[in-house]
């Protein structure tokens, strides 16, 4: 990969809010024209990362390279190229037309304004005649989200950053936002970074997924994060109760200041029946709750609920057919106590 194939290169990024470290990324590269999904629980640092990528905040430490050039936050050279749709998009107290045209107007780009607003609205499935003259307070949550999306799409940005774009919209709006995002990449080669809790939607749109937890990007793709409380049975083993009498025993961290454990999906096996007792082998009984197709690889991401804990596995189509797996089916998950990483 040459330098110019990269939209972003983040080096040694650390970001603090007060004394709290919210982001710690050693090295992250994002290719031009790619769609990257960000996965992680609330407060993991997804929104902060998007703000840094939007150059709307200056990282406390480290550098962000855009197309091979070091760029500082709020730089005027970058403002017209990168745009971010925030989780709760703010609509200006104006009409829909004025909201969508705002970005172009401040760029003094008023050519064919009406037609461009019309096209932008059409891209997100809204009719110009019905919506252009509506005021900001006359829109539903989904419509407001789509208007905010249209206000970004009309700018034809090189980078489109979306923070939970479908958090408050219905299925139809979610589909329209996905189509509009894909069109941005296909029509003018936009690079997209999207944070979402809706894994099915995210997997249907993104080429690559990054898991983020406590400000660290620790893998590509979804991983299983098990948070405390843990019971220290002895110096070597930590135990997590998962309900219905089931427990997970994990090799204790050294030092024992870590608060969450990662069980990588490749270390978890799936079976239909329990194996004879083996030392240090966790065997959990659960049900498949969802199965998602990974667009690029053709693998299936299966989410298994073990009481109130959800674990993700990446399965091949052969595994699915040989075990005859389907949502609702009872399965046994097995993994070694040693196969744990503490964070």
């Amino acid at each position, binding site marked *: 990969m040459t330098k110019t194939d990269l939209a972003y290169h983040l080096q040694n990024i650390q970001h603090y809010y007060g004394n709290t470290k919210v982001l710690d990324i050693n090295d992250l590269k994002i290719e031009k024209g790619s769609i990257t999904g960000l996965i992680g629980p609330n407060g993991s640092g997804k929104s902060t990362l998007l703000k840094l990528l939007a150059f709307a905040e200056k990282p406390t430490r480290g550098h962000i390279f855009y197309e091979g050039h070091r760029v500082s936050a709020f730089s*005027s050279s970058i*403002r*017209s190229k990168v*745009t971010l749709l925030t989780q709760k998009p703010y609509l200006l107290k104006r009409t829909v037309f004025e909201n969508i045209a705002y*970005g172009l107007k401040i760029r003094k780009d008023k050519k064919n304004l009406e037609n461009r607003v019309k096209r932008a609205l059409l891209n997100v499935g809204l009719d110009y005649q019905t919506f252009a003259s509506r005021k900001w307070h006359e829109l539903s949550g989904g419509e407001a989200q789509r208007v905010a999306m249209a206000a970004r799409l009309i700018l034809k940005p090189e980078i489109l*950053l979306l923070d939970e774009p479908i958090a408050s919209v219905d299925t139809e709006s979610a589909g329209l936002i996905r189509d509009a995002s894909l069109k941005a990449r296909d029509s003018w080669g936009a690079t997209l970074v999207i944070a979402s809790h809706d894994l099915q939607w995210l997997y249907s749109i993104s080429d690559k997924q990054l898991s983020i937890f406590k400000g660290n990007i620790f893998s590509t793709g979804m991983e299983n994060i098990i948070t405390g409380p843990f019971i220290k049975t002895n110096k070597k083993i930590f135990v997590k109760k998962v309900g219905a009498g089931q427990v997970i025993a994990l090799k204790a961290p050294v030092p024992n200041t870590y608060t969450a454990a990662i069980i990588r999906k490749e270390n978890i096996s799936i079976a239909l029946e329990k194996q004879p007792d083996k030392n240090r082998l966790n065997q959990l009984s659960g049900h498949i709750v969802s199965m998602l197709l990974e667009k690029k690889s053709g693998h299936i991401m299966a989410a298994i609920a073990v009481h109130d804990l959800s674990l993700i596995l990446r399965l091949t189509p052969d595994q699915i057919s040989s075990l005859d797996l389907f949502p609702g089916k009872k399965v046994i998950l097995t993994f070694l106590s040693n196969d744990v990483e503490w964070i």
Partner: protein
Amino acid sequence: MDFIVAGFIKALELLISGDSSTWTAVWATLKVSTCSMLLSIGAGLPCGFLLGYFDFKGKKHLRTILDTMLALPTVFIGLAVYAIISRQGPLGDFGLLFTLTGIAIGQTILAFPIVTAITASTIENIDHDLKLTLVTLGAGKRHIVTTCLWEVRYGILAAAVTAYGRVLTEVGISMMVGGNIKYHTRTITTAIALETNKGLFADGIALGLVLIMIAFIVNLSLSFLRKQ
């Protein structure tokens, strides 16, 4: 009770007949209060924006001083302005004492902290996502400032109306700095005070009605603007 009813009737007669002493007081009031409002908005709006938008050392102390200024008695402002613009004062050479300009200076001092404080509070309460939205839509500093002000336009209008109400109804500054000179510096409020002292309730009520009408029109205009 009869004298109040009779006062109302006489008041309407005075207003309809175009009584010169009544209408010159109305005109003087409108002129001086509009002038002081324009000055206080011109100075208070940018100061309020800076105070509300930026965090800086000493901001808290500045807010305390500003909040104290909100409660300044009009007679104290009148006294201070009198001292400054009287013959012996530092601005004595300008001959501003007992002029409408002198009253406007005092009323500007009265309205400035109101406009500044309400603007600052309005700006402070701006949705945090607004600035982020503007930055990510490509707005530069100038556009961020103008768009933020436009977004809180109703709050700023409320600041202006509140200050206008205070300026319109004050007596202390107009009386001390203006001197209540008939056909010259007599305003509605000083005229009401004088006429009531003289027992001429009708004149006082007439001017009071005009004052209420002005307040009503200002609030009606604000309400109309909000609907737009």
